[in-house]
């Protein structure tokens, strides 16, 4: 087998979806993944706040019902389309161009992994090709990151606070930046699919 290293310092083509949900967001995440098709063309990277989970239980639970393959990335793993990546517990997950980087830096908004760190690093590395999805959340972690994604030219879709278990994060994101859609989870999944299909072919 030939090992192909991900190319560094090169702008990736195609979109990247980053998703943030806080404690209690499991059902929202599960519903979002279930709404995607097995041929969804982009990588989807997920931070879900949680307690320490050394046995990777969450990845198993999510993988059981998702049409896409779900895994916890290791440091330097390449980011590949059609995969769902769940940030491992007790690390920040950062997006470099084409690969992941982990960090054990201090928690942000009491959270590690932090949604802000994921979103901001995606905005830095994927710029306008970043699509951020903000789901239910009981603190503000993610609101700054949503702003960074918009500033870089990307899109932000927010779960309708009325349908969210905890509206704090969706409301904070909406107040923090002009978002591209306030939608039900089902509608978010549909929009992601449309975006990925309409994306200019040469960029996919």
């Amino acid at each position, binding site marked *: 087998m030939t*090992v192909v*290293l*991900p190319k*560094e*310092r090169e702008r990736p083509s195609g979109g990247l979806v980053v998703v943030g949900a806080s404690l209690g967001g499991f059902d929202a995440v599960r519903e979002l993944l279930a709404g995607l098709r097995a041929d969804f063309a982009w990588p989807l990277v997920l931070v879900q706040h949680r307690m320490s989970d*050394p046995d990777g239980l969450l990845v198993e639970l999510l993988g059981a019902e998702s049409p896409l393959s779900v895994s*916890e*990335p*290791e*440091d*330097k793993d390449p980011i590949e389309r059609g995969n769902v990546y769940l940030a*491992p517990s*007790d*690390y920040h997950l*950062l*997006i*470099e161009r084409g*690969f992941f*980087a*982990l*960090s*054990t*830096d*201090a928690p942000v908004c009491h959270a590690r992994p932090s949604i802000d*760190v994921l979103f*901001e*690093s995606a905005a*830095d*590395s994927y*710029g306008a090709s970043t699509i951020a999805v903000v789901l239910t959340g009981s603190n503000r972690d993610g609101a700054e990151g949503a702003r960074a994604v918009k500033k*870089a030219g990307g899109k932000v879709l927010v779960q309708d606070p009325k349908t969210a278990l905890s509206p704090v994060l969706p409301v904070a994101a909406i107040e923090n930046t002009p978002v591209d859609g306030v939608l039900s989870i089902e509608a978010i999944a549909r929009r992601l699919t449309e975006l990925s299909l309409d994306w200019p072919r040469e960029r996919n």
Partner: protein
Amino acid sequence: MAVPLIEHQAEAVPVGNSRDVEELEVELLLAGMSRRYGYDFTNYARTSLTRRLRRAVKEEGVSTISALQDRVLHDPVAMSRVVESISVHTTNMFRDADVYRAMRTQVVPILKTYPFVRIWHAGCSSGEEVYSLAILLHEEGIYERCRIYATDISDPILERAKRGVFPLRSMREYTTNYQAAGGINDFSSYYATDAENVVFRQSLRRNMIFSQHNLVCDAAFNEFQLILCRNVVIYFDQVLRSRVHELMHASLAKLGLLVLGKRESIRFTRVEPFYQEVVPNLRIYRRMQ
């Protein structure tokens, strides 16, 4: 006819957007730091490095990374602060209880076969894991014949590690970690406290040697039976990661052990075929050749 002067002025047309400008600023700053001071951060993972530099911009009270460059080139003290800001990595005691338990059951028995054990703790930061290791080796009855060489890039951080002084408020979490990691004593018996801090016992510090070592450019300096380098290489890019793994391979005795962070591996490095994973999923490797 008088022609307005303005029409003759060539206007510079910028290429790229503000993020491209920042990327350029980072490259220029890194080149400057390397040429002026010999600290080369070029091969650090760029996204997390850029985050740290933005933080340094705030801490220094300047407005851009270019302004930070101006300051560090002219002010060595500011340079030290920025190096510290880039290289401090939060760490804690007995992080990953399962790794420490595996060290007791799988690593210590191998170390016991040596009359004298040299250990390299690479990228030790403020020393929390060095003290954790010393406690573990003490409880397993082999600390007396061990020497722990603990290295880091930053001198001020090493000074902190050497003192063995940690905030008292962290001890509740560390005690829980210690117990989960298979600790057999009363954790508080290892330190003395005052109102705000704890200081670890001199007997733990006795076999530790702290010294400055830069994984970017420094060479192997000894041969070791055990190397720990946990959550350090995650801050490097592929190129530097490979270099560091080759350096550690060259520093490890045959059949010596390498312990990495739980979410990093030796995959895609040139030394990958030379190791065998001793404990599946815990990133404890043995050098086979």
